[in-house]
């Protein structure tokens, strides 16, 4: 029985999730040792009143078994990753409207150990992000809505400074580094605009839903000068790297009951289109070759997915299967043969991903999970001395999750 009017005092609504999984990662003919993955998040939502809620979020993740979509550079088989993220998001829903206003502030630190001599916190590619944003959502027909958001975030790699910036002088006292070389060359300032909408199809009697989103990301690299055709960094201040990325994604979902309502399916088909424009070039000193417009690319992806669930809706068994094809075409990056010689064609890579998952409810909020992912990548880039472009990889994971 309710004994007091809700909203008259601070109300906590806890949301928790925990998953513990173990498995292995396979790369071509090699396989990793058995490792565990763990992730958890806790959100003690504070409902201040009918209009305002605050979502303080902590999310932690440890990954001992790699994802098949992780990069395949050094430390392909041995890799440990850990990240911690905290955020504070507000949720303001004025009672007079169906609008939602969501200011947020977030910080994340990711630790990555790729070699056995790297300690936590000393990983070369450790990074941290600090961001703030505002999203506005209009629920025009529950649950369908339109969202507009802006985010600003800073990505910093605290352990990655260019070697050139700390190279000093040679034994004869001459500098080893170029005068205009940058130091924190990976750090970026990011501004992002998001537009998304969910649409009922058909509108009057929806049988399907269409999720669409567009994202525009403007990245500036304050300490990465533009490289010219002779491999020299441009010393003039305005000439720093900038990237502009556009992403357009759509997903059509069709949920339906089958077997007289004893089971449910959700079928979807997703597509994505991305274009990145960059003003940066690279210079391959080993081959004495300038590669102009080295970072610009476009990519396209598409694929179906289906999930089948049966049993009580709140405690159902779920099988999921998804397949995705994607292609990335670089606009300026040239192919190389196996010996490194540059050709005239531009690089591309095709990726085929299959994901299969199964979850079974073993108690209230408690599920057993099993999943496997397989990825095939192929490219016209034959120079693979430092990076693999054509390969196949897979992983499997199983374990438990608790979701409250």
């Amino acid at each position, binding site marked *: 029985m309710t004994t007091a009017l809700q909203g008259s005092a601070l109300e906590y609504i806890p949301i928790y999730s925990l998953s513990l999984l173990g498995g292995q990662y396979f790369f071509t003919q090699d396989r990793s040792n058995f490792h565990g993955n763990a992730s958890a998040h806790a959100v003690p939502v504070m409902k201040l009143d009918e209009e305002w809620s605050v979502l303080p979020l902590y999310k932690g993740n440890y990954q001992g078994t790699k994802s098949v979509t992780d990069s395949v550079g050094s430390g392909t088989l041995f890799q440990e990753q850990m990240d911690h993220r905290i955020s504070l998001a507000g949720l303001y829903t004025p009672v007079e409207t169906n609008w939602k206003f969501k200011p947020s502030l977030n910080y994340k630190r990711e630790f990555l150990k790729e070699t056995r001599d790297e300690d936590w916190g000393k990983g070369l590619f450790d990074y941290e992000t600090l961001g703030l944003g505002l999203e506005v959502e209009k629920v025009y027909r529950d649950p369908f809505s339109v969202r507009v958001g802006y985010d600003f975030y800073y990505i910093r790699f605290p352990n990655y400074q260019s070697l050139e910036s700390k190279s000093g002088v040679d034994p004869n006292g001459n500098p080893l580094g170029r005068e205009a070389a940058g130091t924190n060359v990976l750090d970026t300032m990011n501004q992002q605009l998001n537009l998304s909408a969910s649409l009922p199809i058909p509108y009057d009697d929806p049988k399907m839903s269409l999720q669409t989103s567009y994202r525009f990301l403007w990245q500036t690299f304050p300490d990465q000068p533009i490289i010219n055709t002779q491999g*020299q960094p441009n010393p003039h201040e305005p000439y720093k790297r900038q990237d502009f990325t556009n992403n357009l994604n759509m997903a059509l979902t069709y949920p339906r009951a089958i077997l007289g309502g004893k089971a449910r399916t959700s079928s979807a088909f997703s597509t994505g289109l991305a274009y990145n424009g960059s003003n940066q070039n690279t210079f391959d000193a080993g081959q*004495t070759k300038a590669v102009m417009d080295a970072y610009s690319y476009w990519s396209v992806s598409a694929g179906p997915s289906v999930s089948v669930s049966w049993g009580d809706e709140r405690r159902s068994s779920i099988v999921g299967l998804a397949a995705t094809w994607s292609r990335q075409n670089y606009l300026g990056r040239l192919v190389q043969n196996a010996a490194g010689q540059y050709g005239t064609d531009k690089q591309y890579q095709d990726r085929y991903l299959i994901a299969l998952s199964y979850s079974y409810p073993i108690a209230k909020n408690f599920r057993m999970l099993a999943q496997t992912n397989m990825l095939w990548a192929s490219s016209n880039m034959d120079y693979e001395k430092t990076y693999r472009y054509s390969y196949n990889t897979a992983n499997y994971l199983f374990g438990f999750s608790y979701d409250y």
Partner: protein
Amino acid sequence: MTAPELSHAGAKAVTVSGEVQARNTGSLLWNEVKSDAALAGGQEVKTGRGANVTIGFEDGSKVELGPKSSFVLEEASSGEAAMKLNLGKMKAWVTSKLSRRFRVRTPTAVCSVRGTEFGVSVAPSGATSVDLFRGTLGVADNRGNELMLQEGQRVDVSQQGVGKPISISEADAAADSRERADLKREVGLEMTKEQVQAAAALEMKSAIYQQGKAMIDVNGHRVRIEDYIMLPSPDTFKLVVLNERVDRFDYFYYKGTFNQTLPTDLTTAFKQVPGCVGSPCQYYITSYEVGRSNTQDNVLENASGGHQVDLNSNVAADDDVAFAFDPSQNEYVDVPNGTAFYGTLYDTYALKYNGIAHTEWDVAADPSGTPTGRKYDPTAAAAIAAGCVNGSEAGCGGLRSYGDTDADGDTFDHATNYNAHNMTVIQPSTCDNLDGPCVIPTEIQNSLNQSLDVRCTELDNCTGYREENKFHHIVYRKSNTGLWDKWDSYIIDDEGQVASFGDFAGITSGADYRARMLKWNYQQIITASEFGGRKIDLVFEPKVLIESGLIQ
């Protein structure tokens, strides 16, 4: 601000929390309501964010008004208590002894009660939800439809009329579930931001890998690599390779000065550095300096007096070139027999460890150091007699960039111009027969012209392959004066795995071998008598050595 003047009070504010205000009918002025303030019929009461007020009636009945609610006390006489909830929430406890009517209106519903505990909430649309906790309650809509709500039931009333009563507990559970689902969705959206940010970071990391700037060395340590070209003067370039590990920093550089100003397209000059087939090179290096250092110790090679010589038509047969690296094809090509091949020979050369020369020569000076104008010639006496000046004359040419440190294969006048400081390459006394006479496949021996190389399974301080079936090769030299140097070389992939002979299977020539080598990395660990137990540990692409002429 003071409490309003309230006449013939039938009700009063029993407890007040937060911002609670009231005004009389028709008044525009809101006044603060304090505890025990009297309220009369016709007054409107509103509560602010987080505020609430409990209003008590004479018979003991009471009403609690929730935050951000608007409420009109329509009647508070001895015969009737009537109120209208315009917006927000209220809860009422109505005593059963009340002999008068107790009525709550909303924009869409009317509740008439006796001896009841119930709650009412009104949405901005006017939609009303009525919970009955105890007793009985009549709920009517604006169309005159009425139902009797039972204890523990909830009914929603909208402009369309009164709905079907449902259990409060089930309704609360469903509402909680919806609210939780909404909040989980918000949490999910917040996490989506993280995925986008992580993808941006991953993209930068992948670019570093793709450029070969991070890899694992033979000892399983991460080594960062940066290589770039500097242009210190119009005719000079400096190729720099930097290595960083967790606890050390090593570097390599090759500084070369060309015979003329470098072109805008550097490849035009660089592709001629290994030599030119058929005619002299337009661009060639006249002097160079190669440095290797761990920032404390260094190995410096200096050469000067570079000049072009047709290596295939001088008197020294051992420097003939049968295959050559062609940068335009990025692979080795055959040089047909009898075809001219112009390479660069240097008149002076020095290899020093922390400033101590282990090998050096100067053919341009006589033993007293006086310049003679001579150009380097392996058959020194004949060349001098022939007056070698520009190196292209018959009988001039021979030893090239690195220095034939074991003096094998040339007839250079060591007594006067060459000082190897009696450095001797230490070979194992016997071939290790563990896996046969010599474990190195014959074709590799042939292609490397290293038939003397054998495995040194027991000794580090000897020259040969250190590991069975692996490209781990040691060159160890020492002198009778106590000097020594050791070059411990590995061919490794980007995971630090040492190449096996099997990785080079099927090789038919030295050109094949070197072409295969381009797909791997070099790791050189250099130690010397001058280093005090320290080492220089470098990883770089063999292409760097090939293009700079350090590997022919």
